[in-house]
């Protein structure tokens, strides 16, 4: 019951936040880029729900549009890391031998770089851009997924239903797609609920440092960067973008927690936690 409740609250929050982002053009009360010199740093009011920023732009509308970028980065980079991770995990576990050793050592090497540091480094080498942020976060997230899929497949390969499928003459490809992959999907889904919020957080952190998505595109991270200088005079400027980062990340963590309990996965210590985020 309790796990279902957690899952329910998490999924509802995700649905709500996604709707706000998708319907941003409909729900926004103002043009997010429209400046208004007469109305800068106005506190929240019935006209500007979340107040206005240093250029008189409507913070509420900008938060809605910022959500599109944050969610896009979170989802796309998760697709990337899950896709690459699942594929490499399957290949490593299925072929074994040298292929396995090489893939897993490369995974080990990527894993020891804290993702935020690697992201900072890559952004310093190339120019900060939206696609780079997605690529960096997705490209550094695959090793934990690959490890997970690999250990699931190794476990499942010993199981009776795979042995009987093999006895019935099923081909390798059929065993992988029909038997191993569907059964490994649970842990991968749980991994996704960790990956999306981590990506949202990394994007926000990078943008906050001015190394992520660049203005004028509004994101929660770069709004916080702008707001920093006006913190003393305009609490709403920093408060609302941050609140939405928190709500988004929280909703995915709740979903992950609920999913894990519902699927009966044990809360094993996640070994590859990252430093310094």
């Amino acid at each position: 019951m309790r796990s279902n409740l957690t899952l329910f609250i998490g999924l509802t929050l995700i649905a709500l936040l996604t709707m706000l982002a998708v319907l941003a053009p409909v729900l926004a009360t103002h043009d997010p880029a429209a400046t208004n010199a007469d109305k800068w740093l106005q506190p929240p009011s019935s006209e500007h729900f979340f107040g206005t920023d240093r250029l008189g732009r409507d913070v509420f509308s900008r938060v809605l549009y910022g959500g599109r970028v944050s969610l896009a980065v979170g989802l796309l980079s998760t697709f990337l890391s899950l896709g690459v991770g699942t594929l490499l995990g399957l290949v490593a576990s299925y072929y074994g031998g040298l292929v396995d050793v090489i893939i897993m050592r490369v995974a080990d090497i990527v894993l020891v770089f804290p993702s935020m540091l690697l992201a900072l480094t890559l952004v310093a080498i190339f120019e900060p851009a939206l696609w780079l942020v997605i690529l960096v976060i997705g490209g550094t997230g695959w090793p934990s997924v690959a490890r997970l899929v690999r250990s699931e497949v190794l476990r499942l390969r010993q199981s009776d239903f795979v042995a009987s499928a093999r006895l019935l003459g099923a081909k390798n490809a059929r065993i992988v797609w029909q038997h191993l992959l569907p059964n490994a999907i649970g842990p991968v889904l749980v991994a996704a609920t960790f990956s999306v919020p981590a990506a949202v957080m990394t994007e926000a952190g990078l943008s906050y440092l001015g190394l992520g998505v660049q203005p004028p595109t509004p994101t929660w991270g770069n709004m916080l960067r702008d707001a920093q200088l006006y913190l003393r005079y305009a609490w709403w400027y920093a408060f609302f973008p941050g609140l939405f980062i928190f709500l988004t990340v929280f909703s995915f963590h709740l979903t992950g927690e609920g999913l894990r309990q519902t699927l009966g996965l044990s809360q094993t210590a996640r070994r590859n936690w990252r430093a310094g985020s």
Partner: protein
Amino acid sequence: MIPELGRRFMQTVIVLFGVSMVTFLLMHAAPGHPLQTNPELRLDPTAVERWLQLHQLDQPLISQYLAWLSRVFRGDFGESLLYNRPVLELMGERLPSTLLLTLTAFVLALFLAIVVGIKIATQQNSWLDRFVCTLSLAGISVPYFWLAMVLVLLFAYRFPFLPAVGMRTPGDGSILDILKHMLLPLIVMVIANFARYVRYVRSAVLDVLQQDYVRSAIARGLKGKDILYRHVLPNAAMPIITVAALSLPMLFTGAMVAEYVFAWPGLGRFIVTSTMARDYPVIMTVNLYTASLVAIANFIADALYLLIDPRLR
């Protein structure tokens, strides 16, 4: 156990070499060379050639890598482009401030997490357990730079009794002054670490509570306190120590974004500002340093597991 330990050690060495290669290649993935930063600058091609030769940048990649690696082994990590001083010196100067913050936060957070984690594990699904679990989920969901801003807003601006940024008031070197500057970053880091640790402690204790020897201890009529101190805690200690070992890199690199927000003069902030300034020798060294720390911490955690759990031998 010894062969397994040796295998893990070899793996760690391989990973460390991989780390050095990745770091090196990353820097060489940067488009162009240092003389090409300004496209409007028209340089004499022969001068460029001479400069590249002087810095051995005309050599094949592999020999450049080996030359760099041998310098690294001699402890020569190059000079910062920004400060014109050895990178290692700059990092060494900033490490104490970082350690002051991270070690204090680590000890406080771990202590709190152990006390609270044991408490809630022994009363699983009570309201207190649910409350702490939800709180810790919220704790790992909050962006720390935002939490930092909210705290500054509250305690430095709205009710001004704490400084917002820095480590010292100029001209005031007292310990009390440093403590005052330390308090806000410390709170942020304790919240961040506590939220993570308490979940580990709770699940470690829960794991042990489900073991047969605990059940039989209960059946023998031992008192709850005796079971907890004699059977549960010694067995739950290991996963907790492992998590502590995995925190090692964080202690030595500092929380990058948190240090940046509070302008704390530590290593974490140095990493961020150097990256922004494209100070390549620093970025390279920091990557090598951090990734090596993580690899070593992983090895220590593995070794601890092997030492403690005979089933893995």
